């Protein structure tokens, strides 16, 4: 660092940093403010189930609770653009087996390889 830099450090406009950080975090928080606590777990479970049939990334499945007039809506959006249907052999999507074994619930952090966590 040169002497001039030392004597006259460029002062960053930290107020702008504060404003931008707030905008981002609050947009996110407002969206999830009224959401029930179980939504993230539900989203993860749905991702696991859908992931058995279709190659899907975490950001392609969204779960929201909304309201339309007097009715509460559980809204599940699965984006399929660019998704690939998985071959039948790999899951319960195939023909009925004599005794379909329930897929073991993967522990957190061990998604199937085609599922990128959100």
């Amino acid at each position, binding site marked *: 660092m040169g002497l001039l830099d030392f004597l006259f450090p460029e002062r960053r406009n930290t*107020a702008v940093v504060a404003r931008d950080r707030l905008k981002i975090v609050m947009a996110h928080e407002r969206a999830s403010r009224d959401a029930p606590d179980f939504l993230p777990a539900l989203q993860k479970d749905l991702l696991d189930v859908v992931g058995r049939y279709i190659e899907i990334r975490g950001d392609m499945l969204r779960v929201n609770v909304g309201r339309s007039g007097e009715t509460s809506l559980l809204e599940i959006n699965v984006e399929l653009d660019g998704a690939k249907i998985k071959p039948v052999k790999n899951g319960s999507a195939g023909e009925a087996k004599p005794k379909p074994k329930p897929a073991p619930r993967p522990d957190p952090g061990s998604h199937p390889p085609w599922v990128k966590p959100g």
Partner: protein
Amino acid sequence: MAAKVIVLTSGKGGVGKTTSAAAVAAGLALRGHRTVVIDFDVGLRNLDLIMGCERRVVFDFINVINGDAKLNQALIKDKRNDSLYVFPTSQTRDKDALKRDGVERVLDELKETFDYIVCDSPAGIEHGAITALYFADEAIIVTNPEVSSVRDSDRIIGILASKSRRAENNMDPVAIHLLLTRYSPERVERGEMLAIDDVKEILSIPLLGVIPESPSVLRASNTGTPVVFDPQSPAGQAYLDAVARLLGEEREMRFLKPERRNFFRSLFGRA
């Protein structure tokens, strides 16, 4: 005129809720409105100190809710203004003593006598804070130009919109106002502090007033005098402007430009 319940709330602590509640209540009384200011911070009583009536507290809010005292035994008449009353809270009882139906009963009784009921909310989003905002007709969100305060204010605005009595009963929503406190135009000019427009844009609620950071606020709390009673104080004048706007008057925002330091003023150290 039907009595109005106004809550001062913020989520975050230490932003100036009690100072502002005292100033707004005193300002309303100075305008001739019969006003009572209630301390909802059960267990951490402080409004009495800020109002300068700490040695006159005999009965409190919880005593009245429990029927151990009558309202007129607990209300403390301000010595500076005949229209102003202080309703202190309990220092000892636990915060759950604030039962919603009891609070409603007391507020209904106060509405018979007063034009304005100013509620000083505790910090946080727990029982006490929710009870303080539940019955509000209007809410003043006390916010500092600082990230954690702005975020907590947004949280409280969300709670007002969903958990207040007006929200639960599908009535007209609580009228929400932004009161920006501890604002320092010098620091905003240097890019060190969020500007008014930033906070307004992020919270998107109408601005009631901007209170400049001022040494007179600490002097006022030292002596137990609501800052609006200090005619020299820029903060006091800014609060009086805010009260005028609350009453529907147009007032230009003041004290938004950095003060040019006057050599003699800085010499004598008075702001």
